[in-house]
């Protein structure tokens, strides 16, 4: 029920401003973008899709920040492991 999945807007419909076509890993579906009418969505934007509606526009900067944080943690961990491997306790 909480199922929300990211999809990329690939096409807007001229005759229906409340609809757009999204692509999820090569599969396409028309969804309703009426809940994001203030976002001025364009092809290339990513949205969160839930039961046929776009609920939120994915903020790519925030996504990058989240991944950078995870990279950072990953790097710190890798560094520590490397340091552990290198250190010798006499």
């Amino acid at each position, binding site marked *: 029920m909480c199922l929300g999945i990211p999809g990329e807007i690939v096409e807007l419909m001229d005759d229906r401003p409340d609809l757009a076509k999204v692509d999820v890993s*090569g599969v396409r579906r028309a969804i309703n973008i009426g809940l994001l009418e203030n976002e001025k969505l364009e092809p290339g934007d990513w949205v969160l*899709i839930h039961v046929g509606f776009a609920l939120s526009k994915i903020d790519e900067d925030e996504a990058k920040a989240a991944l950078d944080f995870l990279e950072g943690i990953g790097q710190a961990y890798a560094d520590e492991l490397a340091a552990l491997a290198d250190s010798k306790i006499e």
Partner: protein
Amino acid sequence: MTSQHQQYQELSREEQVLARIEKARARKAKLKEERITLSHGSGGKATQTLIEAVFLEAFSNPLLAPLEDGAVLEAHGGRLAFTCDSYVVSPLFFPGGDIGDLAVNGTVNDLAVSGARPLWLSAGFILEEGFPVADLERIVASMAAAAERAGVQVVTGDTKVVQRGKADGCYVNTAGVGVIERPGELGVATARPGDAVIVSGPIGEHGITIMLARGELDIESEVSSDTAPLNGLVERLLDAAPGVRGLRDATRGGVATICNEVARAAGVAVVVDEDAVPVRPDVRGACELLGIDPLYVACEGRLVAVVDGDQVDAALGALRSHPLGEGAAVIGRVRDDPPGLVLLKTSFGGTRIVDLLVGDPLPRIC
């Protein structure tokens, strides 16, 4: 009480509950429903319960008991394999094939995975009043082409017509007979720790194709059904790797159901590596969109083989040398404990169980 002691107590309590549940699951299944529901046709738990409680009860005999894809029969100094299947797919025509292709390939495959050379098929049709003859001709043409491709003949048949509204266009039943020329028995019940579980290619294509072809979901995609005759592939596999314990045609219920059948029949654990399971990106996308696990989605041109651990390379080599087996991969291993369970090592690195489904996310897919 220290927290460590508490945790130990808790562990035992949980273990106790789990043991009680395993005992309950091992008990003979009882059919509680008074009416047939769609779950009974899904290939999962409800189907199993129906088979055990109704069909096995009435027909009980040692030839039926193994419940493999085909029955192995001794006759006149040789062995035959005999199988049957009904096809109720909706829609009748879909990307990659139609009900006719399924009807021939499905039965050919059940014979092939029984270790037989498929030879003769029957074809029974139940047609709805008003069904277009042109559609019937199309279906039959597919069947003829599929039969030729597989090297089998349709040698007998039957046709019935029912009133408008009663058969949803066309239902097909095919039974098949093949000869078993190789020595030895095939059966997943002989799986043992150390064996590998191999799938012959990417999974879930047929089920997703059907679901999308129904048109209710307005999803566009390039996915098409993988329906194909696997007898040639099986021959190549068995020639190269005599250590194949058992083979299954991965249809309703998908690869997950087969792994469960192996685990239960042989009393072993099957550990599947999620990263190793081949899935096309668009099948995966459709599954994510719909909230379905590709492990349970039907295929119609894939086999699952349980192979002696020492013969994995030979088996993979043989499969990959054949056009229908190019994407073959080892997806899991057999272990001895916990028996009867299928475990999944997730891409994320965690562990979970893969159980039989109760209902069916995709009704009427084959």
